[in-house]
């Protein structure tokens, strides 16, 4: 998050005292809770200089936007914090608190903020630390590049690095090495080793059962020693596997780890064999255990937690198998009876992790989600199990959700609209199922938009320039009676007319005219509860950027928020109608976008599509900003049902000539996105902070 620094002149401004300070604090902190008094806090702040006071007021306001208690906490602790921290450290302290809130909730944030001395020690400890937050975005893209299968990155408890095969858990900070740069490199190496565990079969394959192999030591006093040995042996094997595919990366790992401990040298040959597998590691493990030695310490040690990993892996394998089964059923036709002996389908080319299948000698075109599932199975099991390659019969895919609607929320007024909803199990619509209420968005702080404009003034200038260039798309209109240039074509015609005796035309000029853009864009903003915190901040900032950009372009656009609580109350909040100007009221409503309830996306898409269709534009564009999968309270919308309904709604929009584009802030969601957005196009942002920076570019790409 960027912040507007107090201007340098404020340093010389007189300090704020008593009542004045109290009023300003009241504005930022207690806009909604009047039961607390700012008097005590204000007294504490009187000792600070004006620049510090302004800084505190700024941060308290920012924090209170996220969660009021944090703003209060920061204001209370500020006097002590300023005695310990310089300006930069103060910013870092607040940001760390907000970050802790986003990651672990209010309790963690409060604990972190209160521990001023601890924070000070961590920062001032002179250790060149690398922190998870600074490497997260770059590293997660790196891992995505390596894996193809989406893997999340997250901070684990303590200093250990481990994975449950879906998420790579890394320490919050690394200070083991003397330079910050090498600590960052260590982050990369740890993440790579964890990725390699998931990629090269550390947790077993179709023929090797890790849990069974570990049984002699599990639940004994030797358990930890055995797991450490397993992890160390695996890191030797995995490094060799990495070296075969990614020699540059393997060299970086080798540099970082230094020479292997001498006690391990006899073990290296077997583990370095071409295509060494977990079986080789497990064959060496008993010998290591019998030596009664502890596993040697490696600088890039990554732990193995078989319980968590095997559980998650098992769930994923089951899910992937079903996906694949279903896709193959669909391909062979649902009438085909399951036939286990069907030799027609055989997996090919398992070696290259490219999944190719043949079906009766023809290339078998699997839908993307099934291809991803097969790919994923190949990584987990080393093969696509034969039982996946026969149709699954007539069973449902996921019958885990409860049947029937949630408790009806009885509203006092009739819904403004009722919309059908797609039930994928019935393969039919539920008629008039969703009740939709449309109302005006809440007004927020009138100054919010101006603050954002000041904070991002450079970027906004840049965006405007780029968009003005788009608008300036000129076209030459030929054969005009007057204009700035001669139209050679017209002149040639005139001359040929004249030489053939016909009367030449006097329309011999071309004139430059501006191309009329005929595009209407509808922005649909997720206001569900899960956006609370930085996602909401990012959404509001993104809206400001968008408005600035599109205003300079002159396209028709509208902004609506959506949220909901069961099918009987889907709410649509008007933020800007197509015919409204980007005025004070609209700006206040942008500031008032807040996190509310749940994400029932289908009905919102249907309603906004209808609004969009009323626009007389040639091209209609529906852009959704959301933070993850559709979800609703208490009924089956969560899960497959919601994904299928959303997909259906986007399909309907397309059939009516509305193009949709979905911007999602969800790194872990990539598995369902391709299916859900199917017909629409989409982009996934790995970092919420990027949304305001990227949104204008996304729009430009769509609309030029």
């Amino acid at each position, binding site marked *: 998050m960027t912040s507007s620094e107090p201007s340098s002149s404020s340093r010389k401004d007189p300090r704020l005292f008593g009542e004045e300070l109290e009023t300003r604090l009241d504005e930022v902190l207690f806009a909604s809770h009047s039961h607390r008094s700012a008097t005590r806090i204000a007294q504490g702040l009187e000792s600070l200089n004006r620049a510090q006071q302004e800084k505190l007021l700024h941060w308290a306001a920012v924090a209170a936007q996220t969660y009021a208690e944090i703003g209060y906490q920061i204001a209370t602790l500020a006097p002590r914090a300023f005695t310990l921290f310089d300006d930069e450290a103060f910013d870092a302290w607040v940001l760390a608190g907000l970050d802790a809130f986003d990651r672990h909730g209010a309790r963690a944030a409060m604990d972190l903020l209160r521990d001023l001395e601890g924070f000070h020690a961590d920062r001032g400890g002179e250790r060149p630390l690398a922190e998870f937050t600074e490497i997260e*975005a*770059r590293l997660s*893209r*790196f891992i*995505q*590049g*390596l*894996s*193809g299968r989406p893997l999340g990155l997250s901070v684990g408890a303590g200093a250990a690095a481990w994975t449950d095969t879906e998420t790579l858990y890394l320490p919050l900070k690394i200070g083991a090495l003397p330079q910050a740069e090498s600590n960052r490199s260590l982050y*990369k190496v740890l993440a790579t080793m964890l990725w390699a565990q998931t990629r090269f079969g550390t947790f077993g394959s179709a023929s090797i059962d890790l849990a069974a192999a570990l049984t002699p030591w599990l639940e004994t006093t030797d358990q930890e020693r055995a797991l450490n040995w397993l992890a160390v042996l695996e890191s030797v094997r995995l490094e060799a596997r990495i070296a075969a*595919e*990614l*020699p*540059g*990366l393997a060299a*970086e790992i080798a540099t970082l780890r230094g020479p292997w401990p001498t006690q391990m040298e006899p073990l290296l040959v077997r583990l370095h064999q071409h295509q060494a597998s977990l079986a080789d590691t497990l064959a060496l493990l008993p010998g290591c255990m019998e030596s009664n030695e502890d596993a040697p310490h490696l600088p890039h040690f990554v732990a193995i937690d078989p319980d968590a990993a095997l559980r998650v892996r098992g769930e994923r394998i089951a899910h992937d198998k079903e996906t694949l089964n279903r896709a193959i059923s669909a391909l062979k036709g649902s009438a085909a009876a399951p036939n286990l002996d069907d030799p027609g389908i055989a997996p090919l*080319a398992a070696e*290259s992790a*490219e999944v*190719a299948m043949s079906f009766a000698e023809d*290339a078998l075109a699997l839908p993307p989600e099934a291809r991803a599932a097969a790919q994923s199975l190949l990584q987990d099991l080393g093969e696509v199990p034969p039982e996946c390659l026969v149709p699954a019969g007539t069973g449902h895919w996921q019958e885990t959700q409860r049947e029937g609607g949630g408790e009806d929320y009885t509203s006092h007024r009739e819904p403004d609209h009722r919309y059908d909803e797609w039930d994928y199990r019935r393969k039919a619509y539920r008629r008039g199922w969703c009740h939709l209420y449309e109302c005006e968005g809440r007004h927020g702080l009138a100054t919010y938009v101006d603050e954002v404009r000041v904070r991002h003034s450079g970027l906004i200038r840049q965006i405007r320039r780029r968009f003005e260039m788009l608008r300036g798309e000129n076209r030459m209109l030929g054969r005009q009676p007057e204009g700035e240039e001669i139209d050679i*074509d017209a*002149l*040639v*015609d005139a*001359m*040929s007319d004249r*030489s053939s005796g016909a009367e030449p035309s006097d329309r011999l000029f071309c004139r430059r005219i501006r191309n009329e853009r005929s*595009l209407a864009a509808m922005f649909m903003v997720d206001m569900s509860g899960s956006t609370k915190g930085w996602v909401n901040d990012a959404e509001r900032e993104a809206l400001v950027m968008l408005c600035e950009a599109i205003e300079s372009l002159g396209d028709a656009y509208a902004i609506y928020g959506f949220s909901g609580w069961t099918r009987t109350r889907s709410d649509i909040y008007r933020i800007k109608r197509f015919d409204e100007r980007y005025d004070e009221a609209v700006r206040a409503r942008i500031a008032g976008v807040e996190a509310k309830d749940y994400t029932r996306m289908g009905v919102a898409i249907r309603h906004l599509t209808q609004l969009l269709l009323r626009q007389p534009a040639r*091209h209609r*564009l529906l852009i959704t900003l959301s933070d993850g999968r559709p979800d609703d309270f208490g009924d089956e919308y969560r899960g497959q049902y919601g994904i299928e309904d959303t997909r259906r709604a986007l399909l309907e929009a397309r059939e009516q000539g509305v*193009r949709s*584009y979905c911007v999602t802030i969800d790194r872990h969601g*990539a598995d369902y996105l391709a299916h859900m957005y199917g017909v629409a*196009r*989409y*982009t*996934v942002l*790995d970092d919420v902070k990027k949304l305001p920076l990227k949104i204008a570019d996304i729009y430009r*790409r*769509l*609309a*030029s």
Partner: protein
Amino acid sequence: MSASVTTLAPQLTHIGEEPYYQSIGDEIALFEAAYAQRLPVLLKGPTGCGKTRFVEYMAWRLKRPLVTVACHDDLTTADLVGRYLIVGNETVWVDGPLTAAVRAGAICYLDEIVEARKDTIVVIHPLADSRRVLAVDKRGEMVTAPDTFMMAISYNPGYQSVLKEIKPSTRQRFVALDFDYPEAAIEAVIVAREGGVNADTARRLVKLGELTRNLKGAGLDEGASTRLLVHAAQLIATGVAPLAACTAAVARALSDDQDMTGTLDDLVRAVF
């Protein structure tokens, strides 16, 4: 005088030498069948996957001249069909590339058709159905295409702009062939052959391509194309260090975003 005019006439390219093309499916047989049945074809696929090379190869294989037009948003009907020019005190008609291709019974390839203005694209409609004629309005002439004339157009479905899509009335006249990046083993052969590098370097380059394609949709619009990999290979073949070559030809070519180029640099270093 007439000599100066012929230089203005569009060049029909006769492809004498077999262009290198590695088939990845049944596209050659389909193209030949379409040619035999006088059907126009539409080549779909991401940038740099070999669409243009395929057309060159087919022109050589079918022994037809080739006319290539790179479409852009200022392309007018006159640019395709032809126009009058003034030479001395007379007007002289000069065929545009499309008319020239029709008269010569050549293969006419309109590259990146979506870039062209919609009103321009309409002139190809009567050529692309059973009529197979081109109306040259300015001369009041209907040019009937000989059996050897063939139309091929290409487009990249990965473009996200709503303003750039082919109208159904256009696309439903064409036999569509799907192109994509070839699978790793074949792509390595292509990179080695085109770039003049050894098999190991080619394999690493293809691995880099695969890694960047994993990032499609997560910050990159497109992963590295086969063409980009060949460029990197060519740099390496002339003696540029692999790291520098990949950074320049792949990482910087794919993105301007500083975070993204950082990640791409990491991927380059992982492979070399």
